[in-house]
């Protein structure tokens, strides 16, 4: 682990009213896929939101460093430009802004270069097709009136287009049918390389089938309660969290 990638150290964070994460530590090296699991309310989504700089949350102690930079208090757009991407559990709807225009602006903001509209469109169509998403969605208002499944596919289209170094997927599979989960899983597989890492929050073992998962972190009560290999996923699926994390 000579290449410092993502390192979360002694993190206390939460909302204005309550601290949710307590002294949380997490190391994600480059090129790996890490899964985060845990019971409802354990702090999984809080962790993801804090990682991406959501203004709803605040860090009161500890630090987050990414590629050697301290990003604990960086703005969300600075983190995106540094190479972090989060797939939202509930992608927001923005009326009047097409998926294509928005994504091209985002690509330009991240790369700092002008992106040819025509080349971009052709690339985008290809990406959408590979995810079984009709290309007419490119011209529709961002997520507006999309079904749950199309919203999630849209997030993967954004992931593949923006090509970040670290992708954080927050329950990207929730609300998807079996076929859609498979398509999303294939999209993730296509995205992943030794250059980038993924953090996947999921309850769904189907999504992880075929993905080379490096490690699993089980979070409870705002801290990492248990870490292990991919076999933890099956244990959770079989026995639930109760038997796993209650022992110290």
């Amino acid at each position: 682990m000579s290449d410092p990638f993502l390192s979360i150290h002694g993190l206390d964070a939460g909302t204005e009213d309550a601290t949710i994460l307590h002294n949380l530590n997490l190391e994600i090296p480059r090129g790996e896929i890490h899964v985060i699991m845990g019971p409802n309310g354990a702090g999984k989504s809080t962790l993801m939101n804090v990682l991406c700089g959501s203004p709803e949350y605040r860090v009161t102690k500890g630090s987050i460093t990414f590629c050697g930079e301290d990003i604990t208090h960086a703005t969300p757009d600075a983190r995106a430009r540094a190479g972090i991407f989060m797939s939202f559990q509930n992608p927001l709807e923005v009326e009047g802004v097409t998926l294509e225009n928005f994504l091209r602006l985002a690509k330009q903001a991240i790369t700092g270069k002008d992106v040819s509209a025509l080349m971009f469109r052709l690339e985008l169509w290809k990406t959408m097709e590979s995810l079984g998403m009709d290309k007419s969605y490119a011209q529709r208002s961002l997520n507006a009136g999309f079904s749950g499944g199309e919203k999630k596919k849209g997030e993967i289209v954004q992931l593949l287009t923006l090509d970040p170094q670290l992708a954080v997927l927050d329950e990207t599979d929730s609300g998807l049918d079996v076929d859609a989960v498979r398509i999303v899983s294939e999209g993730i597989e296509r995205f992943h390389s030794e250059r980038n890492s993924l953090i996947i929050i999921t309850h769904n073992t189907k999504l992880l089938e075929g993905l080379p998962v490096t490690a699993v972190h089980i979070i409870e009560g705002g801290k990492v309660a248990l870490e292990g290999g991919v076999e933890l996923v099956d244990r959770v699926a079989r026995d639930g969290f109760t038997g796993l994390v209650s022992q110290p």
Partner: protein
Amino acid sequence: MSTPVKEEPNAAERFESAYNESMYGFHDESDPAYLTDIGLTPEVLGEISDEKDDPDWMRQYRLDCLKVFNEMTYPSWAPSIAGLDLQSIVAYVRPKARQEASWKDLPEDIQKTFDRLGIPEAERTSLAGVGAQYDSEVVYHNVKKEVADQGVVYTDFESALKGEYAGIVREHFMKLVPVNDHKFAALHGAVWSGGSFVYVPEGVHVDIPLQSYFRFNAPGAGQFEHTMIILEKDSYLHFIEGCSAPKYNVSNLHAGCVELYVGDGARLRYSTIENWSKNMYNLNTKRAIVGAGGTIEWVTGSFGSHTSSLYPTSILKGEGAHCEYTGITFAGAGQDLDTGMRVVHAAPRTTSNINAKSISKAGGACTYRSSVDVTRDGHGSTSSADCSSLILDSESRSDTIPTIRTLVDDVTIGHEAKVGRISSEAVFYLMSRGLSEEDARALIVTGFAEPIAKELPLEYAVEMNNLISLEMKGA
């Protein structure tokens, strides 16, 4: 967050400087050939009539209007015009140019002004004819030959008043907007100058738009152009007006008048992008009368002015006449923009469709004021209105004041209003994809305005989006 605190100029100052660097804020040295004395007297009106060589009836008409003006009071419901001293407004400013049919024959600074505004370029690429007014007079007027060959007349108003259409013009002049309609209609009648006259014969479709551009350069003056458009049966026209002015420290007044006569089965689209500078009192009056099966479509973007009081009116006079209103108003620091529309359903089965949006920020106030009237003849009419407002901060405000009056029962009238703020989750979502907070907010606002932008000709849509981005820089 850990950003160091710098001494930032406030929003209004930042906008001010952005505006001055933008394409509208520049100004020429004011160097008019002739201007009237300050204030409003019969002598000043006489000077205007002399300058214009008015026909006798017009000379008298102006004096009659002044009398009405002096007798009328300003309506109590309308936005305050306390900052406007009518006695210090110069009613007439003749630029140092005669009207030309070629841009290069204009004095260089006036030519440059219109170049910077992109008017000659637009004329070459996407317009059937252009009129350009500089202060009180039209300095350029031209219409493409193939359009003129169809019998379409597009000329400055003074020429129309004296030329072969003099009879028609006199018959229609201030008939839709009578002198006693309101105080500023009377003022307009007294001091009007410039504007355009358009006539489209029966069955003629003008495929590309005509455009009049109004540029105000002289400080402390009034602009009172008169626009009259007559569409005969089954004809079609898209007319665009653009307005801008540099910012001065004294108040300017715009009290133009637009009278639109839409014949049976004809369709007129009237698009406006108004970006007067923020010292302007925009008290403009626009009115259309529509025959059976005819359509008036208003598309309006109001960005500029200190104070606006602007309610395009549609009188649906013939059976099945239709009105479509699509408008957006954007009020920033110090602006009080009172806009909306009026429709009178005066014939059976007439329909109106209203889609109004407003954005207010940095203490700006937007008011949507409308009235829908159905007369005793309006059986089976339908009206639907959809108003949505975006308020960008807690200092700004937005009001919606609809009035509905109907004298018959068998009508369907709906009014929906929504007020919202920019969702902070949506801003975070866009920022998480790399957009700066400012760009994320601007994108959301642009998206909000998009239903209006898509009704505008492309170059105006682009201009509107630029204006929004410019406004959002100070937000």
